[in-house]
């Protein structure tokens, strides 16, 4: 029988610290929906999504109710749309996107990810259709998300693709200027994209995955921050000296519990849907809500201004401790599994930008030790495409050389300049537009084009 103190520990975590399951993502292989005509393809796509995901939301709500833990986001991730779009054109791509958008509405999921292309070594015809269609697709649909893998440790960095993406990201934002370029928030450019990531906008189903699989994103940073604050308060009461190793241990314990909750709910949802269970992603994903912030954890760890010296070390410790606790809790850990630092989605980070404590270069440094990259960064609408491409290249280099996943989600806000506030609402939050320094100084580098060769570390055999 469970002991009273065990119940109390869990209850505190559930009710006072706002534990939730951040994402249940059903990943689905749509390759068998490929058809010679677009009409046939979209019909098959809608039918297959409804067949597998029609009960997803109700099942998540039922299981969440049984355990008293809300499943905050329910999503669908599909195999790369570029495969379905081989042999079709951008008109077909737009029809597919609208069909996905409608299927997502019919299933009542938040987003459908996987309008994706893998171009790290080169761009196929299907990949090019995806790239060319993105401004229309992302500005005309609400729930469709896209990810492009433009670099990998094995292939190096496809600078030609980044060059195109520099223009595409500008075009996507401008096509959605009525919403201040929000459509660009649904496009992530990756190095070393994981095949089983449950988090949007980057979720897609990799080609090595089963026919259908349920992946889980665990709860947010609030639980970890509360545990740390309680530990520090206890030490102050008792006068006991606390070291960073003690705080790392506290993070591990929280991560263990949070991971167990995610796996319990994920396995049960997968069982009921009769779909394979995939992975638990240990990522701490903040929301703009106060008390659900990675920035606040950095503050709690003793860095009073986020971006100050020590910020990178603090987030490295957090990231590592989360993984250690989670790995012991579950043998099915995967996805991105790191602490996210999406600026507009994290009120404390956005405030640090406002106070000029945090700049893009420091964020970039932090992403070399955490997940996932320059994420939800609002930049001036006039930032040159070549500069955007070079910012992405820098982030890709961190991923390729350090054998980790990195990504960018840059939003050039049309008509905005550094310091302007932009509010996307809801989970996407608000942030000042960040200053991009040294614009117009990377054109020649980007215009050389081609591919930065795979690094020495790629030859591990």
């Amino acid at each position, binding site marked *: *029988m*469970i002991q*009273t103190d*065990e*119940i*109390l*520990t*869990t*209850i505190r*975590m*559930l*009710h006072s610290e706002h534990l939730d399951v951040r994402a249940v993502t059903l990943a689905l292989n749509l390759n068998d929906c490929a058809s010679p005509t677009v009409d046939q393809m979209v019909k098959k796509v809608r039918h297959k999504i409804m067949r597998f995901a029609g009960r997803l939301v109700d099942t998540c709500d039922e299981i969440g*109710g*049984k*355990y*008293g*833990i809300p499943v905050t986001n329910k999503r669908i991730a599909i195999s790369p749309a570029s495969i379905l779009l081989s042999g079709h054109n951008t008109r077909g791509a737009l029809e597919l996107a609208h069909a996905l958008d409608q299927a997502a509405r019919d299933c009542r999921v938040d987003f459908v990810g996987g309008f994706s292309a893998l171009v790290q070594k080169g761009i196929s015809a299907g990949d090019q259709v995806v790239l060319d269609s993105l401004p229309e697709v992302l500005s005309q649909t609400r729930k469709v998300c896209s990810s492009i893998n433009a670099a990998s440790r094995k292939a190096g960095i496809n600078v030609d693709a980044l060059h195109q993406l520099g223009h595409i990201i500008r075009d996507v934002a401008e096509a959605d200027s009525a919403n201040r370029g929000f459509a660009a928030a649904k496009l992530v450019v990756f190095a070393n994209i994981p095949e089983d990531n449950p988090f949007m906008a980057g979720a897609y189903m990799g080609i090595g995955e089963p026919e259908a699989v349920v992946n889980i994103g665990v709860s947010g940073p609030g639980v970890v921050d509360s545990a740390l604050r309680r530990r520090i308060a206890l030490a102050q009461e008792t006068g006991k000296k606390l070291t960073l190793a003690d705080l790392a241990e506290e993070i591990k314990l929280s991560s263990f*519990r949070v991971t*167990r*909750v995610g*796996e*319990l709910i994920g396995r049960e949802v997968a069982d009921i849907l009769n779909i394979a269970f995939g992975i638990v992603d240990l990522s701490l994903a903040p929301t703009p809500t106060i008390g659900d912030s990675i920035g606040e954890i950095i503050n709690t760890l003793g860095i009073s201004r986020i971006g100050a010296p020590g910020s990178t070390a603090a987030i490295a410790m957090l990231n590592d401790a989360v993984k250690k606790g989670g790995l012991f809790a579950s043998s099915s850990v995967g996805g991105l599994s790191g602490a996210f630092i999406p600026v507009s989605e994290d009120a404390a980070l956005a405030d640090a930008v406002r106070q000029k404590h945090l700049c893009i270069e420091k964020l970039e440094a932090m992403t070399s030790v955490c997940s996932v990259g320059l994420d939800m960064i609002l930049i001036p609408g006039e930032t040159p495409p070549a500069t955007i491409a070079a910012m992405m290249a820098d982030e890709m280099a961190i991923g390729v050389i350090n054998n980790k996943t990195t990504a960018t989600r840059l939003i050039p806000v049309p008509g905005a300049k550094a310091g302007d506030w932009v509010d996307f609402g809801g989970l996407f939050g608000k942030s000042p537009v960040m200053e991009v320094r040294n614009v117009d100084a990377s054109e020649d580098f980007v215009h050389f084009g081609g591919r930065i060769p795979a690094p020495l570390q790629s030859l591990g055999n």
Partner: protein
Amino acid sequence: MSTQKTEDSTERFGYVFNLLSDDRPGIVAGVSSAINSIGGNIEACSQTVLNRYFTIIMTVTLDYPWDCKELGEKILTEGRLKGCQISVRPAVIYPGGRVENRPDTFVITAFGRDRNGIVSAFSRYLAEKDVNIIDLYGNRTGKEEFLLISQVEVDARHDIQNLQLDLEGIGNELGFTVKLQHNNIFVATNRLRLER
């Protein structure tokens, strides 16, 4: 003389008793020595201390039948358990514990400002619904706050959502926050080894 044989093939006689006392060292030693002295075997026991009061429930088997009152007095005397109260009755002893399929266990937690009738309100509702309480803990956590934790067996004929809504409704009337959650969430977050 009232006795009940155990389900075991050997001729043993089962009893259950409950002992209540002020808490102090030596009570368990006294009880167990007394049982030993009359050839008894402790089959299962559970003890707790609450607000400095001690209680233990035990099932024991004996070689021959006893009168319950005499057995109680014998244990108190042999165990030198002065000031303790004991209550004894015959029992069917299930060797190795019950093996039939048990319903799922859920945990009810209720937290709010203390007042009369909290345990009664929730337990009356559970009794009406034929929901069995298998563990109950209640305590003041602050000057005026009361915490109630109850582990209950809920079988498949119950709609969990309805039970949750009813319990939350009772909680609202009493000014209590109430949750009903499946036991597995507490196992998953606390125990190292999980059974699948």
